[in-house]
């Protein structure tokens, strides 16, 4: 008897330790009564106990014991997942059963779907905007009167990553030259660039050995854009990348620049590259705008057949966000700004974008 009692009490305590049985805690005195097949007994007891004593407003968070609470939560999640799967299966069955008469699939809401309509979105047939773009500072490039020539430099005393980014950018952008910035003032560099026939000045700003800003200045008298650079991946860090890019002129893809400001920035990027891409090189540079972030990628593609294409990513990748667009060449103190990013006024809505 004693030994039996001892054993039963031990097994009871073990079960208590097993944690899964909350009801065990509620009715511990029933445990020593049961003798054999205690597993079955537990379950029946549990069921009766659950029906009897589970309060209706019980929530998992009220259990003080962390292990038991965690296990209860996992059980709850499992049940919910099962219910969700069942619901999905049921819906799929119904849909199949209805066949053609099924209601159309609901489109999930995304931030791009819910974007607030921007009134400055450019209508392709708009004459005034066409005239404006036809006679602005980029008209010389778009009328094929000039060829791009880019000067890439950094802020003073650049460190490793920035230097390598400049070198890699120079391979990506044709007719690009990297120069060391010897602490020279940009306002003095610009007239010299103009006299030597450069069309673009690109300054990569560095902070604590990491590139974080980009100033892109269109040269004769063109606008200056200041970007925030993030998520820079150099060639060495790219996974499954192809061989180094060749000297061929790449194609340019500009995605999703819809508003008037987006148009200006898109033209700014387009004018970096020469007009006629060499399709032999099969290289393409993409500037993809999504939610006001511009993603730069450089790929090599190959058409396997009419419908399938394989791509390899070469070259650096980075993300840009526009901070300001200034009319005229670089003059941050006295220049007039066409667009300045004002965080508190412009970032108040999650669904409003400006590019």
């Amino acid at each position, binding site marked *: 008897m004693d030994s039996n009692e001892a054993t039963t009490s031990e097994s009871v305590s073990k079960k208590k330790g097993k944690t899964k049985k909350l009801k065990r805690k509620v009715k511990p005195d029933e445990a020593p009564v049961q003798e054999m097949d205690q597993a079955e007994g537990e379950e029946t007891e549990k069921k009766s106990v659950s029906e009897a004593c589970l309060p209706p407003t019980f929530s998992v968070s009220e259990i003080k014991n962390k292990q038991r609470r965690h296990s209860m939560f996992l059980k709850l999640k499992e049940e919910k997942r099962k219910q969700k799967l069942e619901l999905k299966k049921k819906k799929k069955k119904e849909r199949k059963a209805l066949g053609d008469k099924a209601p159309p699939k609901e489109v999930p809401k995304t931030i791009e779907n819910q974007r607030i309509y921007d009134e400055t979105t450019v209508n392709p047939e708009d004459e*005034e905007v066409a*005239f*404006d773009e036809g*006679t602005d500072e980029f008209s010389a490039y778009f009328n094929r009167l000039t060829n791009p020539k880019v000067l890439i430099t950094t802020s003073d005393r650049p460190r490793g990553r920035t230097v390598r980014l400049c070198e890699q950018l120079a391979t990506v952008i044709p007719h690009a030259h990297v120069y060391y910035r010897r602490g020279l003032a940009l306002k003095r560099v610009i007239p010299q660039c103009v006299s030597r026939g450069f069309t673009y000045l690109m300054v990569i700003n560095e902070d604590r050995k990491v590139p974080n800003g980009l100033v892109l200045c269109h040269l004769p008298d063109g606008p200056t854009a200041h970007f925030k650079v993030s998520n820079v991946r150099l060639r060495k860090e790219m996974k499954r990348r192809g061989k180094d890019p060749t000297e061929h002129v790449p194609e340019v893809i500009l995605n999703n620049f819809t508003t008037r400001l987006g148009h200006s920035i898109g033209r700014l990027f387009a004018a970096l590259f020469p007009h006629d891409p060499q399709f032999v090189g099969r290289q393409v540079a993409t500037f993809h705008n999504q939610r006001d972030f511009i993603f730069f990628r450089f790929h090599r593609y190959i058409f396997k057949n009419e419908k399938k294409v394989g791509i390899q990513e070469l070259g650096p990748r980075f993300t840009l966000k526009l901070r300001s667009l200034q009319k005229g060449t670089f003059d941050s*103190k006295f220049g*007039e*700004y066409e667009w*300045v990013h004002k965080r508190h*006024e*412009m970032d108040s809505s999650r669904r409003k974008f400006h590019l």
Partner: protein
Amino acid sequence: MAAKSQICSIWLGSETGILKGVSLTKKQAFNFCEMSCLSRDQEVCVMAWGDPQESEVLVGSVNGTVKTFSTDKGIFTETRECGDPSQGRFTGLAVTDSSMITCVESGLLKVWKEGSTETVEVNVGNGICRMQQNPSQRHRVATGGKENPLKVWDLERPDKPIFSAKNVAHDWLDMRVPVWVRDIGFIPDSDKIVTCTGHHQVRVYDPSTPQRRPVLEAQFGEYPLTALSLPASQGTVVVGNTHGELAILDLRKGLVRGCLKGLAGAVRGLQCHPSLPLVASCGLDRFLRVHSLEDHSLQHKVYLKSRLNCVLLSSRELESSSADDSGDVEEVKAEEEEDEVWDTMETVMEKTKKRAAQKNEATVTGVDGKKKRKLVKK
């Protein structure tokens, strides 16, 4: 065309050379341009009213022509050659009785008399940024620019300025403070002149005192102030800078009263309404915005597809906004008249009911017209 131009209450000049008219009540914007032969050298630099009745708009372009646009007819009626592009852009345009005053960047201020080809020329110095006419004494103009201090000229005695400002004393490093007058305003009912500079200073000068230095100096922001306007209420000035910050400054102490939010680009043109507390601003972000000066809120925002250089408000703005009110008042009056018609038709009972309703201001019963009449009474 004529119908469109007659309802426009705000006129804007753009960089593409198009004159735009905006009607805020109808919420429409119209382009008035000569045919489709636009070019960048017709970019509008200055605009002014051609006559006190505001029926003509004078538009000065980069190529040196001044065009007259009639708001009644809706077409450009006249074009005058008033200089050539080599002397710089127009920085000021004004009209006195029977003559037109133009000023260019190189400092050549010309008075063009109607009918005769002779002009009175004054050289006001190089690097002029602005020339402004005194609205109460129309033969006086003020000019100022980069390294060209404020000077007030009387056109009847054009050889010497009647007032020339002196630069402020050296700063705390004992260095000369640079001068860059960007915009000028004449304070009404007094002799004082307020200027805003490219070094983010707002200064008030008083020519009636022997002091040639500014009477008041205030600073705002860190960017050049490009435009200035004086509202109808005395003692304040609205300024805008190249970052799109609009601020209302108090001219008694030189403090910033408040900022008007919403602009994203440099402010090129700013004008306050002559009687209502409204200010219209236009700039490089291609929007026209009308703010209320009392609660600093944005009243209207219009997208006009080109960068805008100048803005002109007509006092008709008053009529348009009061037209809405008068519209309501008219409606109410019409309903009152209707009520009177009903009164004459119906029995005395109705009248007593109405009188009772008028006497007490209790809950309204009866026809809707009564309710509205009560509102009017309130």
